[in-house]
């Protein structure tokens, strides 16, 4: 088990390195750098101005050197103002050390966000906290509802209840967040006027039922159908097992069979699905936060990517990759833990 986890952590680190490199390559493509320079010089700059800005701030240094600096295996060097010989800050909003030193992701320095004009480490935690709250409530709503639907549908396969719930689940898996978001907003905010169509106030004035229900509902609906279908399949399979037949022949009531015998075994498979749902929720978070203007991680990711905010994009990419891979690891280990017939190797 220990060896398995160690190896997986090794793979995770390698994946992180590779993906960061790919992201680094893309955000440093020439058109993207020019976009950044135009954005940062904030005036009508000639091509020469842009080029000298990029040159001065070290964007024209060797690509691998710069990646090494970001990772923290190569020292970051301060910019020396040629006129005065003094150390010049790259930007007004992030302080950089006056001498060359190792300061990258390994050392915990995520760099400087050019779009928000603040160090990445200042902006990221609050966004993650906001998204964490959203994800927490989505999980609270989504998991019990979908498990209940799945168990109810799967305990009597082919019944009317099963048919109805299954069609409902298919409809919900066909509804991406941007569709359900619009439908819910149109119905609950525009037409009925009972809920708030924007969640922007949730972070500033506190979470209330009216400003937070729509984002949670919108996000939960897509995953619910999927988990419910998996639970149904798992439940239906368990219900045909020999020990259920034995229990029935013993004369146990149907409710007791479902609750005491079937449920525990039927919930092993959905556990994996729920864990693997988290990476998927990451995409959902981006869409939902954009629709409802909720300034969390997804919103930050969109802002960073559309402004080509190099350090912030890299940090966001790194965090999402870690999240995806860790949930995979937990789901694998947890599956082996829950199901003694499976052995990790």
């Amino acid at each position, binding site marked *: 088990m220990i060896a398995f986890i160690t190896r997986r952590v090794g793979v995770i680190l*390698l994946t992180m390195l590779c993906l960061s490199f790919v992201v680094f390559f893309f955000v440093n493509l020439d*058109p993207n750098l020019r976009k950044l320079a135009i954005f940062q010089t904030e005036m009508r700059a000639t091509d020469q101005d842009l080029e000298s800005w990029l040159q001065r701030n070290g964007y024209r240094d060797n690509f691998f050197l710069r990646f090494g600096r970001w990772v923290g295996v190569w020292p970051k060097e301060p910019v020396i103002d040629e006129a005065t010989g003094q150390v010049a800050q790259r930007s007004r909003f992030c302080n950089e050390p006056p001498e060359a030193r190792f300061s990258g992701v390994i050392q915990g320095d995520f760099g400087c966000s050019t779009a928000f004009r603040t160090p990445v480490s200042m902006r990221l935690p609050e966004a993650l906290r906001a998204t964490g709250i959203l994800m927490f409530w989505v999980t609270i709503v989504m998991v019990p509802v979908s498990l209940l639907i799945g168990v109810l549908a799967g305990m009597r396969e082919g019944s009317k209840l099963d048919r109805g719930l299954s069609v409902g689940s*298919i409809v919900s898996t066909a509804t991406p967040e941007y569709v359900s978001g*619009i439908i819910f907003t*149109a119905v609950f905010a525009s037409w009925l006027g009972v809920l708030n169509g924007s969640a922007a106030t949730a972070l500033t004035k506190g979470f209330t039922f009216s400003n937070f229900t729509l984002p949670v509902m919108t996000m939960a609906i897509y995953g619910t159908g999927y988990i419910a279908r998996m639970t149904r399949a798992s439940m239906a399979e368990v219900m045909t097992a020999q020990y259920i037949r034995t229990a029935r022949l013993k004369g146990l009531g149907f409710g007791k069979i479902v609750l005491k015998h079937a449920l525990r075994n039927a919930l092993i498979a959905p556990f994996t699905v729920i864990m693997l749902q988290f990476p998927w929720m990451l995409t959902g978070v981006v869409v939902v936060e954009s629709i409802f203007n909720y300034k969390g991680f997804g919103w930050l990711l969109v802002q960073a*990517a559309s402004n080509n905010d190099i350090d912030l994009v890299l940090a966001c990419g790194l965090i999402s*990759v870690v999240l995806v891979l860790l949930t995979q690891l937990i789901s694998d280990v947890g599956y082996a833990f829950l199901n003694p017939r499976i052995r990790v190797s």
Partner: protein
Amino acid sequence: MESVGIFGIIIGGLARFWPVWIALVVLIACVVKWKRKLGLLGHLFDSMIGIAGVLICCFWLFTAIFADIIAPLDPRVQVSIMKNAIPGAVNPETGMVFLLGGDQLARDVFSRMVYGARIVLTIAPAATLIALLVGITLGLPAGYFGRRVDQVLSFLANLVLAFPVILLFYLLVTPGIMETAIPYAMAGVLFLVPIVFFCTLFYTRFTARPEKLYPYLAVTLILGSWIYAGLVFDADPLGIVSIEPNELNIFVAVVFASSPGVFRIVRGLAMDIKTRDYVAAAQTRGERPWYIMLWEMLPNARGPLIVDTCLRIGYTTILLGTLGFFGLGMGPESPDWGTAIKDGSQVAQLRLYFWQGLTPALALMSLVLGLNLLADSMREQSLKD
């Protein structure tokens, strides 16, 4: 402004789709007549879910085909008097009805929805097909050979899968990247895969029968390189096959994002099928690995693959919508559903003129629903066998 009312909208809408109804009636008549001979398609009509799936999918397919006849206006035409018009509003000058109202740029929402179907139904199935071929070409050897091949390919696939889809699209589909050679290089590699796939397919089968092998290879190479030249270099000598740079960019990004998923499924299937007796028999016969993979294993993996492809077209439709929703790739004037959803979902727009966002949203949802229903009933059918 005058309006034809709710019944006017329903009747007008039904009337507008007349070519689709005719096509659907013909389709149903054909299916009823030759049900026994149609195999899978005939079996789909055994359950309500299957019928619903086929009808919804075919509805959108025919809408895409007959878009020119159905849509009363060009999707880009602006009729300034109809700005933000309510559904069913009548243009006082020409008497033309805007069945689903006008959008904020005074375009006909109904026409845009109809033309949007054409965009979605060309890109989504085509991209899924290429992704399927890429996934098969890489997944079969990974599952069959195992070991190093599998390790390397699986690592690469997991790399792409670990990436948040949105970030991938923000990196791959930006105006900036179209200035570089990256989309063309990726297109060059990805579109090469189908050609290689079909060449290998025919080569492994007909090595001993050159009189069959050469015609097949020639047809594949000529057709393949013709389409390849048109798509990648925009240099089709006949001028038929061509694609806008931004559409190529979207296409490539979507293929790239969905092939690892296909890869994983094919790999899993291959690992399972590898242990069957007929594979051992072929190995004992001394068949080459690629013959076994393409002609012994692939046909036996077709059931789950068809179901998955069906689901994946729906998923690709959702991805295309996401791209449009974030304003990536598609032009701002493009009538595709994602862009229309984005335009209609701004807070003020949604509050006052909800039909602008709701129409494309419901269109997209119904298409994906149709594909999901179709996949579900196909899975049921394949479980029955």
